[in-house]
């Protein structure tokens, strides 16, 4: 039971486990959700999905799996209408409606007609004006308009054209799409490791008191390493040119980063790294910092993060004088290699979706230069990048 659904979820990339499937069974046994697909949807989601980033995948898998099932709804409902339903049905009609039913030859005839068409009809049907299905103007079906119509299926309390899982409300919580400030903070926090490393250098008062007490009053001093944030970061942002559509995303990353690190320096560059960078984008032409100075000033344990789309002409990377803005004596590639020799951990975060990287030559070249340490600007990409940096 539900094993296919379970595998459908796993195939869609929702990490569900046997234990959760068993929970779902247990819940069904106890009638937590019974005879209502909306209830079942909410219940199975609360049971099987443990992170909102998987909600969208769950919705899609759920939709795919239960679509066929829903098609059965109409048929099953149609098998029920009998005398006891008929009286209920009549109660719900206004005098006007009843008069209209008479115009079609009375309720009996309408139902007769309905059954006949149901038999003729083999498949689920949508739209149109004759067959039974949804959204049409035939007198039979659901969600359609016809004053003389029979409505098939329950009048669900949601009563929306779109099923809850078809709305895909949680699309932007999936971790493989681009992100806002809130998501970035989670990923960047990975970087902030409160490394309790080094010599013990702080008196742990609580521990000392408690272990002295345990020691029957003989003083037992306990020390702990000082807690400090060990992460130091150099940020390089690509500004101008092809980067402009991504500036907003970068700003968000930047503003998120600001609060996360004690030691953080940021620099700007255009397209690719050359002999100088700048700190203030407004005065980029007169206040430049030599890259050599940067490399000498900040020690090799700084982690370096580039943010840029790396989309440019290949010449800008490999040729001296290839820069679009100025004459560069040495190729960007040379400067990048120097930087890579100086710093142990360097990553490049790219706002261009990962599946488009191979179509731009300069992106593959940059990625090769960085030995594959290029990550997309998605929560997942950031997480991978951060976990590499903090390794």
């Amino acid at each position: 039971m539900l094993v296919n659904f379970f595998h459908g979820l796993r195939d869609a990339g929702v990490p569900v486990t046997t234990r959760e499937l068993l929970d779902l069974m247990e819940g069904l046994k106890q009638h937590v959700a019974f005879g209502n697909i909306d209830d079942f949807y909410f219940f199975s989601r609360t049971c099987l999905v443990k992170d909102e980033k998987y909600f969208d995948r769950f919705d899609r898998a759920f939709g795919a799996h239960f679509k066929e099932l829903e098609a059965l709804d109409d048929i099953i409902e149609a098998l029920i209408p009998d005398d006891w339903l008929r009286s209920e049905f009549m109660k719900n009609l206004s005098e006007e409606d009843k008069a209209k039913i008479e115009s079609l030859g009375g309720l009996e005839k309408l139902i007769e007609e309905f059954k006949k068409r149901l038999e003729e009809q083999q498949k689920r049907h949508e739209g149109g004006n004759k067959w039974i299905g949804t959204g049409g103007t035939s007198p039979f079906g659901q969600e359609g308009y016809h004053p003389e119509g029979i409505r098939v299926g329950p009048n669900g309390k949601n009563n929306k054209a779109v099923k809850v899982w078809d709305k895909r409300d949680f699309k932007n919580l999936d971790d493989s799409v681009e992100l806002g400030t809130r998501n970035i903070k989670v990923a960047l926090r990975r970087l902030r490791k409160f490394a309790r490393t080094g010599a013990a250098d702080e008196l742990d008062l609580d521990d000392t008191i408690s272990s002295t007490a345990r020691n029957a009053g003989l003083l037992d001093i306990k020390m702990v390493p000082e807690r400090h944030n060990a992460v130091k970061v150099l940020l390089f942002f690509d500004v101008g040119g092809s980067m402009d559509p991504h500036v907003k995303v970068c700003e968000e990353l930047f503003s998120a980063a600001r609060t996360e690190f004690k030691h953080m320096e940021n620099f700007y560059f255009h397209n690719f790294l050359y002999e100088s960078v700048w700190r203030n984008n407004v005065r980029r032409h007169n206040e430049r910092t030599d890259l050599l100075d940067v490399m000498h000033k900040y020690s090799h344990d700084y982690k370096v993060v580039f943010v840029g789309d790396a989309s440019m002409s290949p010449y800008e990377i490999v040729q001296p004088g290839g820069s679009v803005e100025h004459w560069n004596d040495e190729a960007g590639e040379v400067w990048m290699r120097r930087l890579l020799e100086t710093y142990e951990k360097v990553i490049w975060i790219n706002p261009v979706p990962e599946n488009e990287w191979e179509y731009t030559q300069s992106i593959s070249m940059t990625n090769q230069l960085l030995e594959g340490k290029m990550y997309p600007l998605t929560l997942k990409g950031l997480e991978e990048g951060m976990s590499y940096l903090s390794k």
Partner: protein
Amino acid sequence: MKFEGTERYVATDDLRMAVNAAVALERPLLIKGEPGTGKTMLAEEVAQGLGKRLIQWHIKSTTKAQQGLYEYDAVSRLRDSQLGDEKVQDIANYIKKGKLWEAFAADEQVVLLIDEVDKADIEFPNDLLVELDKMEFFVYETGETIKAKHRPIIIITSNNEKELPDAFLRRCFFHFINFPDRDTMREIIDVHHPKITEELVQEALEVFFDVRAIPGLKKKPSTSELIDWLKLLMADDIPDEILKERDPTKAIPPLYGALLKNEQDVHLLERLAFMHRREMR
């Protein structure tokens, strides 16, 4: 026994289902959502709605899992032994019960709120795996096993500051409180401020969603801020016209302090107003 929301709390269908499933299957329920969407309040309301006692355990960055079970106060025991107090013979006198113990030992089923679990150390949830699963733990000092008389209804909230370990997640049910849509928001306002005029709500909601839609805000106003703001508006008796008057020269909504908590956001709004004014000219 079903939770249907209370007169002070609007529970959406999916939230109700999540709570009822967790109650029926006796699983902890993990609640996530934007700050201010009523995660902590949910536990209070569930307790009230089901007529149960609520035990709250607020987690801080220094909280250890052990503190929820019990603490052994070795220092007072040492002092008592030096003073020759009789109490010292029985180690149980120095065991301080934690919130989990309290919940397990209760004579009727209680609701236990573990608030902001993500604030604690990453090991915190891992240290509670067995305790939450089996609902029992062992006290080493006295050698007794504490087992829950009635499995408490456990509600855990998280602000998503840390990822929770998989093993922990597998043992919980999960619900994400989505930001309420317009209709739900209106219901929430009705519940909190029944007297407020329909018109004012309409205007306020429009301004509120306008402010939320401004790109680049550091902290977007959320439900609790909207309710605070409405309270202020009512207390101040600001006529609807002021809200309605979308005059760009007064682009800052009245009493904005309740909506925007960040100086930069206020500046952003002022700057937008200024730019707008310039365009008008």
